[in-house]
């Protein structure tokens, strides 16, 4: 092939700075969205477990809506449409405070929360009913049985899907570039259009994504092993 690789024109001080700030925004977006998503997911899973009809129904609607619409469309909706529906003062506040980042974070968090709450729910359903019975037969009441016996097992059972959704969340932050968040994919394209060294810069960016993904997979593996209930 006649192509000559030239990484030196991509890895100048300026572009390295761009890449670092891209990684920083990607990680911030991941961490912020993860925390919001986890909290919402727990609330949704608990609401669903109450068996209170309207709550169950509301959670089901939330989950289905967020799982059956492309994340990009959700992000675009939050960015273009949602501010129109907000009071003027909120809109001003958003514009003054980096609205792209905040809205992308909310959109990604809401979508991930839907998936995570399903992971938690299937964890709860996978705990055999006999475990609950055994707990009750000792004289533990409902709450004690849930908190000592059922929920700890459910959380362990939902670790693998939770890790998977965390990885997807990290990868999905790249979608935020569509509304101009300066994360890693966005910065990569900036450097590309500055230097025209397309292959080099995309190789570097892909490498960065892979390293971060592998770290998430590796940590996820450790957590899975730590909580595997001694089956291995």
């Amino acid at each position, binding site marked *: 092939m006649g192509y000559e690789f030239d990484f030196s024109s991509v890895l100048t001080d300026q572009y390295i700075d761009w890449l670092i700030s891209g990684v920083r925004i990607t990680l911030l977006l991941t961490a912020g969205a993860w925390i919001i998503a986890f909290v919402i997911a727990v609330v949704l899973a608990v609401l669903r477990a109450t068996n209170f009809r309207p709550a169950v129904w509301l959670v089901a609607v939330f989950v289905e809506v967020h799982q059956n619409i492309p994340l990009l469309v959700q992000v675009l909706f939050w960015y*273009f449409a949602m501010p129109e529906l907000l009071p003027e003062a909120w809109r001003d506040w958003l514009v003054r405070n980096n609205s792209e980042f905040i809205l992308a974070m909310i959109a990604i968090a809401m979508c991930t929360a839907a998936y995570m709450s399903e992971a938690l729910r299937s964890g709860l359903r996978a705990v055999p009913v006999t475990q609950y019975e055994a707990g009750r037969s000792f004289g533990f009441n409902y709450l004690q049985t849930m908190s000592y016996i059922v929920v700890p097992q459910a959380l362990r059972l939902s670790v693998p899907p939770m890790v998977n959704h965390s*990885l997807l969340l990290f990868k999905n932050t790249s979608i935020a570039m569509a509304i101009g968040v300066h994360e890693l994919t966005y910065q990569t394209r900036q450097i590309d259009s500055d230097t025209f060294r397309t292959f080099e810069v995309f190789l570097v960016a892909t490498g960065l994504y892979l390293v971060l993904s592998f770290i998430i997979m590796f940590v996820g593996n450790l957590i899975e092993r730590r909580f595997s209930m001694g089956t291995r």
Partner: protein
Amino acid sequence: MLEIVQNNWTLLLVGQYPAGPLGGIVATLLLAIAGLALAFPFAILLAVARLSPYRWVNWPATAVVNIVRGMPFLMVIFWSYFALPILIGRPLSGFWTLVGALVLYESAYLAEIIRAGIQALPRGQEEAARSLGFGYFRTLTFVILPQALYNSLPALIGQFVSLIKETSLGYVISVNEFTYAASQLNSQLLVRPVEVFSILAITYFIVCFALTQSARWVEQRIARTRQGKSSGMQIQTNPLATEPMP
């Protein structure tokens, strides 16, 4: 909102077709179908390779799957955009660029589904076929894969929904599909983003939700036929908050 749909339904449905390129929701569905159909053979190869006892077969397959699993789909799209025309030596339309990205990305995810389906089969199936004198590949094609693929049908339909959702990212490289059509409409109308993006979201929801529901229906059917064949496979689930026991 209805009025926007009335005035622009051809754009949302088929784009500029037949005067210009095909677009809209029809293009979205065609993209997803083409992506799934072309990714499928690669996925089966990858799945079988990952289960191979030979290191030099399973190791590269595992590497491919993990690398793809570690990459954002957008990155795969950009690679397809830059590298695919060079690889095949001629320019590619946006449609086929996106199909290329879908095939690469989804081969890995579909492979994992198929692999799980193969691993979920009882070992006795393979042993029985091998004892009858079938070789490795015949065992695979006559005994293992038909069962594994049938059992993973719900997951495969679910993955088709993922494909439909992923095609929306073609928007970023201006592929004529549904999200792109809606964003064009949005910049034409300028002041009605709530309505335009609601139409977009609702349409995707209807298509994807219908498919998700059919996946659940298929799953129940498969579970029922399996229950008929053999008992003792049922998993007792926890009714949890049904009500505290007496």
